[in-house]
């Protein structure tokens, strides 16, 4: 019997409300508004109240996939990572760094955005870095 709440930030809009994820025996079972959060002060919208619902949704990816012909097949991390690195470096070699690019994500964390642009700028050598949300 283990129940705890984890303070975190709602992932559904830029307001950044404070939420508590309720974890019962290692499973997220609910979301509560953080009462002493300076932005939402214990209130949430319908998305915030249900921020946990998609976590275990059907179709969550749990294994790396590699395309074999017209199918995506499960692969090991090692295989997938080596393949990604090899193909990108080959393309860079053949067509130059500006033949590669990335779409980063306004849904991901600062750290993840930083790391992805660092890969493309510092390792590949291109500034073809952008994200899909334009405001």
């Amino acid at each position, binding site marked *: 019997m283990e*129940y705890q709440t984890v*303070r975190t930030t709602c992932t559904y809009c830029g307001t950044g409300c404070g939420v508590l994820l309720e974890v019962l025996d290692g499973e997220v079972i609910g979301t509560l508004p953080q*009462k*002493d959060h300076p932005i939402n002060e214990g209130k949430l919208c319908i998305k915030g109240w249900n921020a946990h619902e998609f976590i275990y949704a059907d179709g969550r990816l749990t294994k790396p996939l590699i395309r074999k012909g017209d199918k995506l097949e499960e692969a090991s991390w090692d295989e997938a990572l080596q393949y990604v690195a090899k193909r990108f470096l080959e393309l860079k070699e053949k067509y130059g760094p500006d033949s590669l690019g990335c779409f980063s994500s306004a849904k991901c964390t600062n750290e993840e955005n930083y790391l992805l642009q660092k890969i493309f700028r510092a390792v590949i050598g291109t500034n073809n870095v952008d994200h899909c949300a334009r405001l």
Partner: protein
Amino acid sequence: MENLKKNIKDMLESGEIAGFLGLIEEEGHPIPFLFTKDSLDKLDALTVPDIRYPMTDILLKIVRKYPEDTIGVMVRGCDDRALIELAKNQKILSDLIRPIGVACTKEMAEYCRCSQPYPREIHYGEKVEGVKDRSDLEKVESMDLSDRLDYWMGQFSKCIKCYGCRNICSMCFCDQCTLEDDTLILTGQAPPEIPIFHLIRAFHMAGRCIDCGLCEEACPAHIPLRSLYRKVREDMADYLGYVTGMDETERDPLEFLGSDGYEVPTKIDET
């Protein structure tokens, strides 16, 4: 506080309770936490803060998974009243719950305009007398009927349909919630259909609402929900002589309505 911690520790160690639902302070923020034999070290962080989480609502989630275990829970006056009603509605077995009572301070009682800011049994804090303050209701009652309707329609029209009032309420425990019944209330609309959305909930709170005010605190539209439910609560007392959450033995006069969802009431309350 040290006594309280020792008390909880003893109950956990002796196996009297399998878990104790309270609050811990983490980096200055109080958050709900279930203490067990394996997390006794966390008792150092036990806290009894002024901010409130829906303890009995959380308790229900744990009880649903562990229906046979005895569980301790920190309760204030309102939570304790919720326990009484939850037991009557067969959502918990009182024998399997060990309430550890906390009396609220004068400031909290005033903030909540609470008539009984203490639980049946007090383990922590000093009992203070309740506050008799109906100013919110008097304000509305002083309006004539059409102003009153305008007032409430104006309030309800701000609703963003977050369901927060229901989600945070310990007494909203139905498996199927009428508010989500699309034959009664159109889905996908914000504000939801007014006043039906809010009146359905108000009627359902008759004989259930234990006046904790958590719903109003959770309402992003700042709708004075509690005044609405208070009126219903008063009417229950005036017309049916029943004060919700006060007596373990007295039967809820609306019990015949059943506890897993209600029929829609047809009469519109003119609060």
